[in-house]
Structures are given as C-alpha cells and as structure tokens.
C-alpha cells in the first residue's frame, strides 16, 4: 500500500525499497512470512551482498532510515515509480524513466487526465502514469496476455492504487478500447508491435475536443507505418524522438601542461630541467566511451478537436503523397 501518497512509517505488507548502492537497489515486502515455491510458509528473509535482511523487522521502521545488516547497512525507502522501474519483476521489456518522463510531459498529462495505455506489460510506465493522473484522473490500461493482466491488477491492488486504474484484458488491435471509453481520453499511449492497427481505436477513445497520442516502437519501420496512419487520420504536430541518457564520469585528473616559454631564451646555467613539463590537477567530467543504447523511438502527435479535423486532413494530404512516393 506504500505507493499512494507520502508515508512515514513502514506498515505490514508495504513494498519497501532496499537501497545499498546506485546499482544495488531491490524491492521487498514488509511481511514476516511468505509462501515459498513449494507452498510452505517460511520466514521472509532477503539476502543482500551485505548480509540477510529479515523483512518482517521492517514493520514500524521509518522510511528513509538505515537498517543494520550483518556486514553493513542499507537505506529503506518508500517506493516511487522511478525506484519501482529499476526494481520491478520483469514480465516483458519495460520502458525506463528517461523515456517515461518525456512521455508524460509530451502527452500533457496532469492530475485529472484520463489516459488509455496498451499494453500494460510489466506496469513500469503504468505506475508513473497513475502518479501523474491521480487523484481525480484515471488510467485505463489494456493487456491481451491473461497472466500479465491479472498480475498487473494484483500489483496495483497491493500498491494501494486500484482506485486510480482499471486493467482490462483485451486485444486492442482487434477489439479496440471499448465503447464505454469513447470520447473520454485526454491521451493514448501505445507500446504494441503493430501500433498502426490501434490508431483508429485511439481516435474513438480520445475526446472530441482533441488529445495527444504517443507510440513507442523499437524499430524505425514501425515508426514509418504508424506515422502514415496518423497522418491519414488527421493528426498534427507529429514528432518522433529518442531520449538517450549518458552518464558523465567525474574524475580527478592530472593534466600535463606543456610549457614552451623556455625555448625563447637560453637556459641559465644550473636551471632544473623539470620545469618544462608541469601537471595541473583538475576535476573533469569525462563523456562515456561508447554511445548509450537505443531503447525506442517515441512518436508524438496531436489529434485536433473535431471542428479542426477536416482541415488538418486536407493539409496532411501533401505529406501523405510525399510519404507514399518515398516508399
């Protein structure tokens, strides 16, 4: 229940983030006992590189404090969508925070927004979407895989977020988002292998006063087909981007300084040779040696309100011709 609102004390059943180092972050449940794979009740003990953590002992501790481990200590933190993204159990490929942040800003999501998402996958993006729309907005998330839909639903409940999200199991390319969502959404997000098939359904779900759409695809061929579908449907402000996060490493370096002054005058007798090469100490930021990995292309577009759609469609026609020629 620890995802909804700021919390001070850890309660039984809360998800707790165990933070050791920036690359060693885990999530545990504050429960004394859990059921193991064989179906037996056993003590809930989490093994860390710095010793074992009895998760039951966390109950009553304050979020943000240190807990003692046999060979060190760890911080126990309240989960945020960002911490959840780096610790969640993967059931699919997931979207990471740099992309997620861009998606939320570009889709213009704020408290009160109604958002449609498909597929739910591992719920990495969903958690951030829920945070952005609550308390009076709602997330409708669609997943056609039975197990993933059920697990996501269960997870939202355990995280205390059920009231802000509805999970539906459905193939959205074939069956759309359902009539009950017609003309309700401020934004639609697609992370599907064939997003262009869902575009007509997205248009029905978006409000007649217009809205924003994002499609996330790893391959540029998917992007092209989606863009064409969006153009034909009368979307505007289309933009495809990729967010690459690089980590600069901050280092103390000795930088050799070449001194060329001495060549101008004759060396005085007895002057030391070493003055000619000096070093300067500096703190420098070093860019990464290799380019950061590609995650996916995000295509954003605006569906104009009903009253401006026909005009936009006629404007898009020349672009569609150009795209058609290029193919």
């Amino acid at each position, binding site marked *: 229940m620890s995802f909804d*609102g*700021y919390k001070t004390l850890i309660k039984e059943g809360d998800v707790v983030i165990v933070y050791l180092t920036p690359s060693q972050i885990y999530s545990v449940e504050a429960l004394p006992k859990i059921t193991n794979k064989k179906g037996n009740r056993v003590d809930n003990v989490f093994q860390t590189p710095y010793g074992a953590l009895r998760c039951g002992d966390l109950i009553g501790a*304050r*979020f*943000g*404090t240190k807990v003692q481990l046999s060979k060190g200590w760890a911080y126990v*933190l*309240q989960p*945020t*969508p*960002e911490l959840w993204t780096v610790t969640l159990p993967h059931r699919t490929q997931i979207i990471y*925070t*740099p992309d*997620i*942040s*861009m998606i*939320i*800003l*570009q889709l*213009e999501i*704020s*408290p*009160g927004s109604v958002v449609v998402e498909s597929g739910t996958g591992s719920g990495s993006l969903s958690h*951030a979407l829920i*945070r*952005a729309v*609550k*308390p*009076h907005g709602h997330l409708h998330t669609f997943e056609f895989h039975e197990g993933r839909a059920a697990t996501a639903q269960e997870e939202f409940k355990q995280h205390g977020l059920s009231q802000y999200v509805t999970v539906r199991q459905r193939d959205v390319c074939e069956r759309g988002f359902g009539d009950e969502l017609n003309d309700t959404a401020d934004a639609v997000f697609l992370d599907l292998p064939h997003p262009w098939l869902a575009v007509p359904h997205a248009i029905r779900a978006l409000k007649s*006063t*217009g809205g924003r759409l994002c499609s996330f695809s790893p391959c540029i061929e998917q992007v092209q087909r989606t863009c064409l579908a969006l153009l034909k449907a009368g979307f505007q402000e289309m933009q495809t981007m990729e*967010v690459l996060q690089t980590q*600069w490493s901050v280092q103390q370096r000795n930088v050799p300084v070449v001194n060329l002054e001495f060549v101008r005058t004759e060396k005085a007798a007895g002057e030391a040779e070493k003055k000619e090469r000096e070093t300067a100490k500096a*703190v420098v*930021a070093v860019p990464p040696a290799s380019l950061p990995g590609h995650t996916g292309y995000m295509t954003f577009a605006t569906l*104009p*309100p009903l*009253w*401006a759609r*026909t*005009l936009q469609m*006629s*404007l898009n*026609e*020349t672009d569609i*011709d*150009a795209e058609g020629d290029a193919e």
Partner: protein
Amino acid sequence: MEIMDSDRNTIKIGDYVVVQRQGYTKLHKLKAHSKLILGSFNIEMDNIVNEKYSDTFQMKNTPGNKKHYILEKVQQINSPVETLNIEKSGSDNRHITNDNEISQVLTKEDIDKLKDEELNSNNIVGQLVNNSKTFSMKTEYSQEKYIKKKEKKYFEYVQIKRPTIRILAQMFYRQDPTKTLGIRIDDLSQILAYANIHSEGNVVLYDSGTSGLMSAALMNALGHSSTGQLIHMHPGNECQRNAFIAMQFPKEQSERCINVNLYSVLRCFYQQKNTFQEQEEIEEPEAKRQKTEETSAQKKSWQLDNERACKILNEKVDCLIITAKEHPVNIVKELIQFLNGNRNLVVFRRTQK
C-alpha cells in the same frame, strides 16, 4: 466540468494564446484591438475572439494599409504542390548553377509587391516558379523541395492554440535558451519525474530565472483541485512569471504557489519566528486580540506570503528543486534543512566545471 471545458475551448479577450505559423510559435496576450508582430507581418487579432482554439485563420491584407493583416477563419487550405501544374522536370542537376539571384527573374521588390497585393502563397509560389529559369531543370524531388520551402516563407495561415507546458517549454527554448537557464524539454521532464512531483505534497523551488517555466511546470503537475503547494523562491525583487501567467491556472490552483524572495523569506524564518509558529493557547484579552488583527491587516502581502511560506517550511517539505545560475552548493546547504527524510532533491545546472 463540462461547462468549464466548453468555456476553455473558446478564445476570449484576456486569454494568453499561442499563435502558430508553420513551425513557428509565439505567445500573445489577447486584448481588444490587439496587434501581433509575427516575423514581417503585423496582424490584427480581433477576428479570433469568440472563435475556437485549434481553429485556423488566413492572414489577409487590409485594403487601406498593405503592411497590416487581418485574420479570417478558414475551413480549408489548398496546398500549392497540388494546385501547381508542373509539366517538366530534369533528371539531374548538371545544368543548374547555384545562384538564386540569376535564376530568379523576380526582384525582391516584385515579390514584396505581390505580397502586398495579396498574401497568397499559392499565387506567389506559382509566380516564383514561372519566373525561375532553372525550375524546369530541377529534378522532381528538388522541385517539390523548392515549392515547400517557398510555401513555408509565404504561408498565410496561422493556428491558435492554448498554451501548455509542452508548447511553452519548446517555444522558450527555441526563442532563447538563456531565458530558461538552458532547460530543454527532456531536462524539464526528468526534473519533474525524479522529484516525484504529483498532486500532493509541498515543494520548494529555488529558481534564478526560467521565465516562470519551472514554477508553471510544477504547478501544472501539482494539479487543480488538489492539495500540493509550491514555495517559489527567487533572488530578485520580482519573480519571473511569464510561463506561469500564460498557463492561466484557476485561482484555487495559482494561489497554492507562494512566491517569495529567498533572502527575505529566510530572514523571516530566522528572525520572526513569532509570526508563523503556533502560539501557545492562552486566552488573549479581547482588546489585545483586536489589536493583533489590525496589525496583520496592515501587513504587506509579501510579508504575509513569507509567513505562509515559513509555516510550511517549519513543518518541512517533500521536495526541493534548485534550478540556479549561481553555484548551487550554498543554496542546497541552506535549504536542505527544510526537506523531510526520504524525499527528493533535484539540482539542475547547465554548465559544467
């Protein structure tokens, strides 16, 4: 909500609107008989009043004054690529010398005259094509490119949009990145995410000059009809509020942003504890109470804002964001005391050392 929504879709006097012409956008406060200068065009904005957001308008020359344009709502736009009938194209560019001056027969004055007679991109592009010595030698592909380029230059349509954080962030960055401390849209999005900004909690922002973009983005993410509050600390006499005002938040929402001067709010926090800390519950004599009420009525609004802010700081906040021109270390050191445990701190600075 329904009434509010339909109201929000109508363009009204007093609104801040975004005027978009091709890829170019400009923020404009709509007053009665207001004019907007958009590139080389001087546009009277009256005709957009009571029309709807996302509507498209054509810039039309006014009969008396050639340099002035009025706006006329349109339902359809014809692109010159379609209306032009291109008969001949070359197969490559071997005969083309790259000299615009020579290949174009029309002089700048000729084109200006065309523009002043009627701003009609189809017509102007058509004339440019007909008077180009090299157009028919260009390949089909570069003909299209040429037309698109010229069409863009003489495009006579604008669209009116409501400002959003996305539009403002992109517009400010394109116009002059130094006015928003170089914060790009990806920076902004990540500041909001890593700071865990959502509808509840209290946020402290120290911002030394993003034209109000930071406070607007934060208030937008804290949302309407919610409990989140923002203390916006700034170094000057007046805080920068351009983007914040442009967002036209409902009163209830914009009042949850408290703008205070960094030095003056800290002075209040250290030196005037009595003004914001809970007083012990002693029965005050009637006369004395009246007197204190009077003095509080005489207080300047900035003093009251400082006190309101200090009351929140005293209880500690959930998030501290620093977007500073200055070296941030001392600011962080001072403000970190107000941050609750297990909460988020984000520091942004464009430059590296």
